[in-house]
C-alpha cells in the first residue's frame, strides 16, 4: 500500500510536466520546432516501430555495444588478472595504461577516426576502449584485495597455477570483477552514443543527429527516450545478475 502511494507521488511530477507540455504545445506557447506535442513524439515512435526502422537502429546499436564490450571486457580481464597477479606486469604496463585511461573516450574518437576511418572498426575500438579501462582497474584491484591468508592456504594445499586461478583468484575477485563489468557496460553504452553521434549512418545516435538535422524534434526526443530505456535495462539487468551471482557469499 505504502509502495503504491510512493509510486503515485513519484508519478506526480512527470504527470504534471507532461500536462504542462501538452498544454504548452496545444496553446502554441512554443513553436512546434522547439517543442513538439507529446502526441507527436508518440506518433513518431509508432511510425518508426511499425516500419521496423526503429528496431533496425536498436539492433545495430546493441550489436555494436555487445561486440565492443566483449572485446574490451576480455582484454581488460586478461590485463587486469596479469596486473593483479604479477607486480612486474603491473610495473611495466601501469603508466601507459594510466595515460590511455586519462584521455576520455571522447578524446580518442577523432584520433581513431583518422586511423580506422568511420567504419564499423572505429565503433568497436572506441566501445572496447571504454569497457576495457574499468574492467582492467576493477579486476586488478579485486585480485590485489584477496586476503593474504587465502593465498597461504593455496600454497599449503600446493595448488597448481590453474587451480590457483580457478579456485582462488577468480572466486576471490568475482565481486570487483562484476563491478568492472557493470561499469564497463555503462561506459560502453555512453561511448556508443558518442561515436554514433560523431560518425555513423545508422543506429540510435545517428537517429538523434538525423532528427536534429531535419528539425524533427519528435524523433530526437523519441530517440533520447529509447536510449535512456536501453541504458536503464542494461544497468538494472546487470545489477540483478550481480545480486543473484553473489548469493553464495557469506556476508561477514
Amino acid at each position, binding site marked *: 500500500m505504502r509502495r503504491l502511494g*510512493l509510486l503515485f*507521488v*513519484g*508519478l*506526480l*511530477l*512527470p504527470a504534471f*510536466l507532461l500536462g504542462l507540455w501538452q498544454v504548452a504545445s496545444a496553446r502554441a506557447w512554443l513553436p512546434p*520546432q*522547439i517543442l513538439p506535442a507529446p502526441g507527436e513524439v508518440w506518433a513518431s515512435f509508432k511510425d518508426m516501430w511499425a516500419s521496423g526502422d526503429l528496431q533496425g537502429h536498436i539492433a545495430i546499436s546493441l550489436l555494436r555495444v555487445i561486440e565492443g564490450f566483449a572485446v574490451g571486457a576480455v582484454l581488460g580481464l586478461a590485463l587486469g588478472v596479469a596486473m593483479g597477479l604479477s607486480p*612486474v606486469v603491473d*610495473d*611495466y*604496463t*601501469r*603508466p*601507459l595504461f594510466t*595515460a590511455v585511461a*586519462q*584521455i*576520455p573516450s*571522447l*578524446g*580518442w*574518437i*577523432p*584520433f581513431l*577516426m*583518422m*586511423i580506422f576511418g568511420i567504419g564499423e572498426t572505429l565503433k568497436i575500438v572506441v566501445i572496447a576502449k571504454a569497457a576495457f579501462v574499468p574492467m582492467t582497474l576493477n579486476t586488478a584491484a579485486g585480485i590485489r584485495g584477496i586476503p593474504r591468508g587465502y593465498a597461504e592456504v593455496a600454497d599449503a594445499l600446493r595448488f597448481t597455477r590453474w587451480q590457483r586461478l580457478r579456485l582462488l583468484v577468480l572466486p576471490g575477485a568475482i565481486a570487483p570483477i562484476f563491478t568492472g563489468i557493470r561499469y564497463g557496460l555503462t561506459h560502453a*553504452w*555512453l561511448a556508443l*552514443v*558518442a561515436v554514433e*553521434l*560523431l560518425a555513423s549512418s545508422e543506429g540510435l*545516435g545517428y537517429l*538523434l*543527429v538525423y*532528427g*536534429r538535422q531535419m*528539425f524533427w*524534434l519528435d524523433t*530526437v*526526443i523519441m*530517440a*533520447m*527516450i529509447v*536510449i*535512456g*530505456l536501453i*541504458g*536503464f535495462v542494461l*544497468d538494472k539487468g546487470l545489477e540483478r545478475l550481480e545480486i543473484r551471482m553473489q548469493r553464495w557469499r557469506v556476508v561477514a
Partner: protein
Amino acid sequence: MLAGWNWRGAVIPLGLALAWETASRTGALDPRFMPPLETVAATAWRELRHGDLVTDLTISLARDFAGFLGGTLLGILLGTLLGVSRWAEHLVMPSFNGLRQIAILAWIPLISLWFGFGDEAKIAFILMSAFTPVVLNTFEGVRSASAQLVEVGHVLRFTRLQFITRLYLPQAMPSVLTGVHLALIYAWVAAIGAEYFMTVGPGIGGLIIAGRERFEMDLVLLGMILLGLVGFLINRLARSLETWVLRWSPERSAR
C-alpha cells in the same frame, strides 16, 4: 625519490615512441597518419607562439568552469533539499533518476536546438553534466547524517536553516566533495564534447575536430595530449582541495 622510480613503466612507452619514430622516418608508416614526434612538438610550439592555443585552452576552461560552478551550486541545492525532505525525495527523485538514464551526450541535439551552438548551449550542457553527480552525492551525504546529532539539534532548538548549515551540510561534506570531484571530471569531458558537436567558436575540442577535418594528425594528437593533461591536473587539484577542505574531519585519515 630516484630509488622509487619505476623504470619498468618507462619501457613500453619509450619502446612505442621509438617504434613510432623509426616507422614514420623510414616511411613504413604514412607520416600523415603518424607524424614524427618532433613534428608534433613543433606544431605545439608553433600553435603556442603564433596560433590560438592559449586562447583555445582559456576559453574551454572558462566554459568548463562556468558550467561546473552552476551545476555544482544547483546540485548542492537540490541534493540538500532531497536529503532533508522525504516529501521532496518521493516527489522528485523518481523523475531525476529517470532522466539520468539518458546518456548525457544524447542531450546535445536537443540542447543545440534550444540554445543554438554558442556559449549558452555549451555551458548549459556542461552544467547538466556537473549537476547529476553533485545531486546524488549531496543527497547521500545529507541522508546519512547521524540521528544522534539530529537529536542534539532538536535539543538545541535549531531552526531549519541552522539544521542545514550547521548540521547536515558539514556532515555531508565528504560526500558532497566526492560529488564535486566527479563533477569536475565530468564537466571537463562535457566541455570537450560540447565543442565537438557545436563547432562554433574557439576551444580545444574545436581544435581537435578542425585538425581531423584538415587531416592534420599532429594537431589532433596535440589536442588529445592537452585534453588528457588538463584532465589530469584538474583531478590532482580536486584531490588536494578535498584534503584541504576536509582537514578538520575525523574521517580524513581514513579517506
